[in-house]
């Protein structure tokens, strides 16, 4: 009982913009699925909601790429993207029970994050070139694909979501739940509160905050929106 009376020291792992990004992306991916699946019930045969939703997802992904280049160290690609051998070594240590702790992403988790971002970005990008099967809606850059290719991109747009992204999301969620239950590392609360309990983190030296994270995040969000919407308009695409 005694240890509960002493509050454990908690240190910062995830900055506010990274957390807001994460949960907004969760909501938008669910909404993207729902706005397609229930378009009839929503009275939206031209998928207007789904198309705006996709542009929002793309903006978020571009923002996350910028944040991975100019954000705080734990969110930076440079600090969490490791090679496959580092990931394999980590996987082996995990299997043999060798304790290793990271304040940011571990080498294996970092690759999953990269895959998730890449996959969602690919699905959103393919969506720009798709064709609804009754010709009711097209992606804004559909004319560059033409009908035959658009049909191919459309099937990839679907396939990368179901089953590929869904499988990866299941892996991602299951791993985070297991870390909490088996290893007693509260990774899910950390993505909500931003804090992890103080421990012997091997990447702690790389972990450093940036000044004015909020204003920087907002400036990068504006940049991301300009890239996505400006890019589509520059190529003569029509917004939904």
């Amino acid at each position: 009982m005694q240890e509960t009376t002493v509050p454990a020291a908690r240190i910062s792992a995830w900055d506010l913009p990274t957390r807001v990004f994460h949960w907004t992306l969760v909501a938008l991916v669910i909404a993207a699925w729902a706005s397609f699946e229930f378009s009839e019930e929503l009275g939206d045969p031209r998928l207007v909601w789904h198309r705006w939703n996709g542009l929002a997802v793309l903006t978020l992904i571009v923002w996350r790429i910028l944040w991975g280049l100019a954000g705080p160290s734990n969110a930076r690609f440079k600090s969490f993207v490791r090679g496959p051998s580092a990931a394999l070594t980590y996987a082996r240590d995990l299997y043999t029970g060798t304790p290793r702790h990271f304040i940011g992403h571990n080498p294996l988790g970092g690759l999953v994050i990269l895959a998730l971002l890449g996959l969602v970005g690919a699905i959103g990008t393919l969506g720009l070139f798709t064709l609804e099967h009754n010709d009711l809606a097209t992606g804004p850059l559909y004319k560059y694909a033409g009908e035959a290719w658009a049909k191919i991109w459309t099937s990839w747009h679907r396939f990368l979501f179901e089953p590929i992204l869904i499988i990866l999301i299941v892996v991602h969620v299951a791993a985070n739940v297991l870390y909490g239950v088996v290893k007693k590392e509260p990774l899910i609360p950390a993505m909500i509160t931003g804090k992890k309990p103080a421990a012997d983190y091997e990447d702690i030296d790389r972990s450093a905050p940036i000044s004015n994270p909020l204003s920087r995040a907002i400036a990068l969000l504006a940049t991301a929106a300009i890239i996505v919407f400006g890019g589509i308009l520059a190529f003569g695409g029509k917004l939904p």
Partner: protein
Amino acid sequence: MLRAALVAASLLVIPAAALAQNAEVIKERKANFKAMADAAKPTGAMLKGEADFDLAAVKNAIKVFQEKAALQGKLFPDDSKEGEKTEALPAIWENKADFEDRFVKLAAAAKAAETSITDADTFEAEWPEVMGNCGGCHKKYRKPKD
């Protein structure tokens, strides 16, 4: 032994015969869907901005939709679930009332469009409502295309 062989043979033959019996109805409904798809094709090009508005093509699609939709509900008897490369999903026979009602709705929407669509603007606004009947039904009752 002979009896067993006969039973086995009849098990093989009866479903084949049942399929053969209904080949016609499946062919017929597929031809109707094809006619609707062909009639819808030019309207899709207009919606995508690839073709200019053409009232005659829209009127033709409206006519074909009403004619064919009136026939389709009856062309899914219980013994036409398989064969002839049908894309019909079992869900059709599990929700027969909803499925048949969709053709009624499609015909009604096409009928309403007869008067509501007069120019490019009303076409843009109203035609997706008619065509939405196709997509909504395909999503529930047609095998997904690869």
